[in-house]
């Protein structure tokens, strides 16, 4: 994404909406999607009929025509699906911003909605599923015969190299889960609202993939939907909510990376896809890690958070453990992270709930507001964005 000076050529998030987060929504995925989009449009004060672009990412079961029929969309000019599942989720902002900045679209919706707990179990072992390329759930052919059949097992196998390279242990990852649970405890929308935990609770949870992951290192399986709506900044300034600018957004797929089963690039102790996302975002904006007041980092599993801290330059290689231990991710820390509780403790809406939290932090409307927010980093590892307050 380029940074045009013309407000007609800049994109802003003007609405967010979500359903409740549960383990059994009691209604169809299409209804969840339609409801969260309806809610985002109401937040923005734009009629759903005006939507002319729709963007989601792989592993969403809803289709654009079905949603258009629910929402009364008059004519859709553009739709796209970013690859790589949740790890590509923030790439939706790059697609949405690009078509707004090009003039192709006026009002673009981003959504994710699913019953991944009540209708199917996202974290269960997979063997025979025909996973489409770019689907975001790994390359089964090379893993299923060896018992690596879940997202947890794939992420753990890569992260184990990071752990032993830098002497990180499972308790170090546990501190991330505890910090995020603290935010969830005071976020009424979170599944774990009112339920803080201690490191001992984390350490007593069952092993999922020793020596890397315990149960409380893993995100939930959730039912629910979240949507964002974007339009051009010049229009956003006349809408209901303060505009949240997309200062930059990008996808990033470096050579020889894979999603989840990411075993083949040079050094698995580094998150090269996050490093590439960071380089691009910082180059496009002229900003750096020191300019971020908060970050929403993709936390399907705790090691991803620690590795993103290093990839985005909040600390040096191998320093993630001490950065977490020093409390910088928690309330009042140097870099509050996943202030809604994240995918671990709010809900696993594949990252779109974390994008919405970034918007709330810029607006100043989050349940756990960070004071003085100018910029928020959004990262899903294989994609990222920087949101900013409108200075006008």
């Amino acid at each position, binding site marked *: 994404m380029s940074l045009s000076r013309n407000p007609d050529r800049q994109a802003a998030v003007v609405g967010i909406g979500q359903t409740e987060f549960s383990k059994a929504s009691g209604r169809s995925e299409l209804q969840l999607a339609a409801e969260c989009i309806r809610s985002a449009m109401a937040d923005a004060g734009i009629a759903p009929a005006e939507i002319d672009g729709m963007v989601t990412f792989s592993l969403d079961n809803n289709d654009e025509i079905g949603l258009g029929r629910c929402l009364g969309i008059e004519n859709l000019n553009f739709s796209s699906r970013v690859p790589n599942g949740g790890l590509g989720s923030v790439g939706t902002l790059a697609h949405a911003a690009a078509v707004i900045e090009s003039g192709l679209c006026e009002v673009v919706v981003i959504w994710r909605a699913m019953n991944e707990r009540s209708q199917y179990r996202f974290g269960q072992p997979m063997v025979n599923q025909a996973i489409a390329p770019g689907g975001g759930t790994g390359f089964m052919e090379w893993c299923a015969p060896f018992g690596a059949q879940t997202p947890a097992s794939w992420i753990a*196998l890569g992260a184990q190299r990071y752990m*032993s390279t830098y002497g990180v242990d499972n308790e170090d990852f546990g501190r991330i889960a505890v910090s995020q649970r603290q935010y969830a405890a005071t976020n009424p929308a979170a599944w774990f609202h009112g339920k803080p935990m201690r490191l001992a609770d984390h350490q007593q949870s069952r*092993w999922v993939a020793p020596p890397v992951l315990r149960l409380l290192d893993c995100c939930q399986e959730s039912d629910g939907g979240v949507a964002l709506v974007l339009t051009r900044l010049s229009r956003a300034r006349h809408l209901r909510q303060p505009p949240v600018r997309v200062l930059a957004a990008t996808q990033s797929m470096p*050579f020889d990376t894979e999603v989840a089963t990411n*075993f083949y690039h040079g050094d698995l102790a580094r998150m090269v896809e996050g490093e590439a996302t960071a380089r691009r975002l910082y180059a496009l904006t002229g900003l750096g890690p020191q300019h971020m007041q908060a970050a929403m980092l993709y936390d399907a599993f705790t090691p991803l958070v620690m590795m993103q801290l290093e990839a985005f330059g909040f600390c040096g290689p191998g320093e993630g453990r001490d950065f977490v231990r020093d409390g910088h991710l928690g309330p009042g820390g140097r870099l509050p992270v996943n202030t809604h509780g994240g995918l671990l403790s709010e809900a696993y809406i594949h990252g779109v709930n974390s994008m919405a939290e970034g918007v709330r932090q810029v607006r100043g409307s989050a349940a756990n507001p960070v004071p003085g927010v100018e910029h928020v980093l959004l990262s899903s590892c294989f994609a990222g964005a920087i949101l900013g307050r409108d200075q006008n």
Partner: protein
Amino acid sequence: MTTDRQGSLNASRPAAPAASGDSAFFWAGADRGELLAQSCADCGRLRHPPRPMCPHCHGTGCRVVALSGRGTVYSWIVAAHPAPHGFDAPPVVVLVELEEGVRIVSNIEGVPPERMCHGLPVMVAFVPAGEGRQVPVFRPRSEEGCAP
């Protein structure tokens, strides 16, 4: 049915699903007890996972070559929960760096998790999988494993 040294039955482990035209040679080789990889017909460089073009010189020709089967453990986990299909006990999943320079996902047999470590020297072996197929697994080249 085979039994590894921890006594876990693993004969029902799944065969590789959906082998594509680009990778069928790898699993056919495993059925014959061979560990194979693609070598570019033009520049000779190895690549894995298989693909129809060399990323270095962009040649589409390749030779299938037998690897030594010798490598070292690059990373490892126990696939404990939820229990994977086809295993009666949680398998140790390893990423092996082969001495020819490519990595593959596999299992290690004969080393308990507490004796696993990076750099453990291993050698390929072939074990039965579902549908009458075979898959490559690895065993330590010395008896000890790593110091706990």
